[in-house]
């Protein structure tokens, strides 16, 4: 069935036989236009028994910044390589703006901008030449190309380095240049593999701003990372990948709610005197929502740290409970448990 698809058409979600009088559930019925859709994707490398991608299903709506989170070797890079037509899927397919990467790789290549994790640059070229070369690869020539190169260099803030040799560039600059090269042909979908790895916090901040800017320009951005914190703020939604499978997908809050039941929060309390510390310890033991054995007391600084099941309201309840018990609270802080910590824990279990 999916063999007869024309370019631009969406495939059926599953090639299952259904009675003709009932409407077939197809992807076209989704109200949100999808930029990238992976269906039943399997990928096994040659001479390997295990699957790098194992029944991987993913849909990315148009215009989103989508984060792929997973440990090293989880299959993020493999997925992005399959999407960018570098690798052929073993089974299943990926549709970029409706084009199958199996059947229409040339169309897909014009729609995507890919920035690999481990990329090299031509050391014997200047920054401007490098971009001009890739623009020429996409068939851009003459004045149009010169203008485009200048615009892109402006965008990634390298305009003053146009004639510098690539040999002298720092890692952050190279990352930005590589991002610019992926934008040369104005792609609709950007696939960025670990764009923030190995750069300083300032460059990371700039990258985030750049991603937001690209999202405003209407591009769909799929970005991978093994550190959730890098992406948490910038991504509209994230997917968590483990051993070639998609284990969770949605916004950060959705994932926190769906997985792990009630969210956990860590509360840090500083009290005034040692007596308060004893009272607080007793009160904590009585408070219902405290996670068992999570209490840590530091007598020198008169601090205690405890994990509370629940949301912010539970933490406020805990503060009120302490105050009722006669504890003089000098300082009270709370933070949500990191989602990745949660998933790391899951993996261990």
């Amino acid at each position, binding site marked *: 069935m999916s063999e007869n698809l024309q370019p631009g058409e969406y495939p059926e*979600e599953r090639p299952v036989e259904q009675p003709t009088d009932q409407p077939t559930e197809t992807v076209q019925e*989704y109200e*949100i236009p999808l930029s990238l859709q992976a269906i*039943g994707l*399997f990928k*096994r*490398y*040659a001479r390997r028994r295990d*699957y790098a991608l*194992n*029944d991987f*299903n*993913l*849909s*990315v*709506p148009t*215009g*989103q910044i989508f984060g792929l989170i997973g440990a090293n070797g989880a299959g993020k890079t493999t997925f992005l*390589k399959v999407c*960018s*037509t*570098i*690798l*052929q899927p*073993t*089974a299943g397919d990926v549709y970029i703006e409706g084009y199958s990467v199996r059947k229409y790789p*040339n169309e897909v*290549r*014009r729609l*995507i901008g*890919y920035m*690999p994790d*481990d*990329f*090299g*640059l*031509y050391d*014997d*070229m200047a920054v401007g*030449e490098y971009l001009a*070369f*890739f623009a*020429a*690869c*996409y*068939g851009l*020539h003459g004045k149009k190309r010169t203008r485009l190169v200048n615009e892109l260099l402006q965008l990634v803030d390298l305009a003053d380095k146009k004639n510098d040799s690539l040999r002298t560039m720092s890692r952050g600059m190279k990352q930005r240049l*590589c991002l610019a*090269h992926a934008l040369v042909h104005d792609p609709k979908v950007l696939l960025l593999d670990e764009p923030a790895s190995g750069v300083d916090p300032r460059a990371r901040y700039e990258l985030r701003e750049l991603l937001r800017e690209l999202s405003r320009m209407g591009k769909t951005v799929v970005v991978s990372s093994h550190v959730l914190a890098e992406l948490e703020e910038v991504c*509209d*939604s994230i*997917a968590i990948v483990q051993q070639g*499978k*998609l*284990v*969770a*997908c*949605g*916004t950060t809050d*959705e994932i926190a709610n769906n997985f792990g039941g009630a969210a956990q929060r860590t509360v840090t309390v500083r009290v005034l005197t040692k007596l308060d510390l004893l009272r607080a310890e007793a009160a904590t033991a009585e408070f219902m929502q405290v996670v068992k054995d999570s209490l840590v007391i530091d007598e020198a600084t008169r601090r205690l740290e405890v994990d509370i099941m629940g949301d912010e309201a539970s933490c406020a309840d805990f503060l009120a409970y302490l105050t009722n018990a006669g504890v003089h609270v000098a300082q009270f802080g709370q933070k949500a448990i990191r989602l990745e910590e949660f998933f790391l824990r899951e993996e261990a279990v």
Partner: protein
Amino acid sequence: MSKVLRFFGRLLRPNPVTVREMKARMRGPRAFALLGVYLAVLGLLTYLVYIRSGGGNSYSYGNPSQVTYGPTKSFEIGQNLFITIFMFLIFVMALVAPALTGGSISREVEGRTYELLLVTPINRRSLIFGKYLSALLYVFFLALAAIPVACVVFIFGGVEPQDILAGYAIVLISGAAYAAIGAFFSSLIRRTGPAILVSYVVIALLIMGSQLTSSSIVTAINGDTNRFPAGAIRPDPRIDPAFDFPKRILVFSPLASIGSVLTPNAPFRSNNTDDLQYFPASSLFGGNPNTYYRQGTGGQFAQNNALARMPILPNSWALWGAYVLIYSGIVALFLLLSIAVARPERSVRYFRLPFRKPRPYRRTKVATTSAVNQSSGG
């Protein structure tokens, strides 16, 4: 109409890979230094051969103690220079061409730029053709830079202008074939150093292998001729059809082909085996005409020399003509092969035995739930 124009426009527009490669190659003094050194060596070699052939002396042919002593033969200087210059060009092609194309895919893989190129509309074919073309242009540039030196032979004679053209046809097609071999091993091995090394070995086999095989067969046939009774007429290797096969093998040898360009014009000397110098199947084997003349001197069969110069290939093909044809085939073959093996993902399909099929994925444990993100955050 506009479609036709666009088609020709695309043909005329240079491949961006070619442009990049050529820019990178010509940047810096290296390319020009190589050209300078190469022309200096060629000039020196030409001068040495000129002196050795008796140039600068009017009466210096051979050695005064020999009967062959006589006036300097100008045409022989010309022919010696022709052979020298074009063989030198062949060796330059064999050295430079694989070194240029030996990194065409492997350097991209090593420099981790291969994937960047693969996601552009530049496909494997235009990537390899682009790199091949840029290497070819530089190699041809080297060969054609020797034209002024090659034309020195016209001062001495013995070589016709069309011989120079034939010599260049041999040199350029050899360069193209060696470059294609380099490109193939670069795609296959994916490491520049080993790729260039293996290309050199294959090219050395092409240059020397055919000559060694040919001379071995000739020696084997001559060994058989020992069975003839003493005094009987032995088969003359120059005209006996038994020797056609080893002569035909030489169609793979660029050096024999260069020799064959001059063969129709080679001087006829009744008392000297030098006559065979330009005959593809004699001294070019390794310089020993006795491989053919087991008994007596060459003079015994000298009258057969004229017959011996007849082409040995079907349809009266000259050896060098067949060489150019065969090497064009080698160019096409290795280019197609290098495109075939340049896939980004190294599949084991080429090497896997047919009965070892991959296990279907259904047998492995497949997750029952698949998370499809239908809801979106935004």
